[in-house]
């Protein structure tokens, strides 16, 4: 379980983007909602161990992550994946991108490809995988690649920042279905300003406003709030 204890965060010291946030993420799908600039992305980046909080602790399975030594940090880190809202790709082919996470873990390409191809099939994006270079792809296609790259690693904790923002409507349902399949074995935390497509399959919801958690509860309750 990843647990945030009394987290405060500021980028430059003067304005706190997160204020006294407590949260826990365990198996299941959690939707983080909130208006633009409310702190959703920062919350995800702090929870996914990318950013160190200004104040407070991030506990992973009861251990303070930031007090760990580098090799232990890396071991924990490899169970946590964060996918950016604006998709990030590396130079090279689509397959280079899809296999990048596996390469970091020293896995051979063959092993990596099997899982990647399974997801490619599932999300009906074979045509994309055949593309040689990522340079000419649309932002939505890049977002799908970033999603598959993360999902293929089957992380214990998966943090997705606005994963449906650029994805075409026809693919959204497939992405939601893949997340629904994965939520029994992983903790998936999704930030979105359009929670409706995800709340129907989510377990929990969290509403954040001006850096503070103002609601935390079952997804059904949140759905009632939204509708």
């Amino acid at each position, binding site marked *: 379980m990843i647990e945030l204890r009394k987290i405060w965060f500021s*980028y*430059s*010291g003067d304005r706190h983007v997160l204020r006294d946030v407590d949260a826990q993420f365990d198996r299941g799908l959690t939707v983080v909602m909130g208006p633009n600039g409310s702190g959703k992305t920062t919350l995800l980046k702090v929870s*996914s161990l*990318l950013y160190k909080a200004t104040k407070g602790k991030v506990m992973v399975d009861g251990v303070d992550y930031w007090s760990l030594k*580098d090799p232990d940090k*890396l071991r924990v*880190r*490899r169970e*946590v*994946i*964060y*996918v*950016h809202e604006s998709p*990030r790709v*590396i*130079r090279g082919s689509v397959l280079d991108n899809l296999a*990048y*996470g596996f390469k*970091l*873990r020293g896995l051979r390409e063959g092993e990596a490809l099997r899982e990647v191809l399974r997801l490619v099939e599932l999300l009906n994006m074979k045509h994309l995988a055949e593309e040689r270079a990522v*340079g000419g792809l649309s932002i939505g296609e890049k977002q799908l690649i970033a999603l598959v*790259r*993360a999902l293929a*690693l089957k992380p214990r904790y998966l943090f997705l920042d606005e994963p449906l923002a650029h994805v075409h409507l026809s693919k959204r349902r497939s992405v939601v279905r893949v997340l629904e399949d994965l939520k029994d074995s992983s903790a998936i935390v999704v930030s979105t300003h359009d929670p409706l497509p995800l709340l129907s399959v989510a377990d929990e919801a969290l509403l954040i406003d001006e850096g503070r958690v103002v609601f935390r509860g079952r997804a059904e309750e949140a759905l009632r709030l939204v509708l």
Partner: protein
Amino acid sequence: MTMCGEILDVVARSLLISSSATLLAAAWSIPASVKLASSRSRWRDPVVGVFNALVGFPAVLVGLLVYLAFSRSGPLGWLNLLYTPQAIIIGQAALITPLFISLSYELFARAIDNYWELAVSLGASKLQAYGLVVKEVLGEVLVVVLVAFARAIGELGVALLVGGNIKGTTRVLTTAIALEVEKGEFDKALTLGLLLLLAIVVVAMSSRLIKRRLS
């Protein structure tokens, strides 16, 4: 030495001095840019602002400051470097440092934001994350190096003030052109000018080629 030999000597010296100055500036500017780009200090933006402002610092003023530093009564006078190629190298390196830092800071800030975070978010070790950043920005860093080199080889103020335009030792393309104009040898000055232009055009074309290959 024949006129042709003399010109080739000046061209070779210019290339050697300005390449050395570029490498020297790269040696401190690249680490400084990486440090600045990865810093979250509140002083980062003001420091970057100062370097941006210094890009337009006049070469002759840098030359004067380096001259004062290396003159016999200056703080570095004991090094006896005034009127040597080394003095020009240091002066040119100082001149191009703000340009180097300003351009490479933008590059590394973007790369760290994009690739460092991407690598770490997918479970990379620090070494693997640096590896990705370097791989992704290498070509663009090379373009910055070429731009800085073009600025160094084309400047006159530093080379003239701290080099002294001594034949066979510190005479470079720009100081040689100035001398030939003073002597009224406009044909020779133009030949040297064309060679300088050629060097700058080759550098500019190389950076364009690199950019095109990257995109």
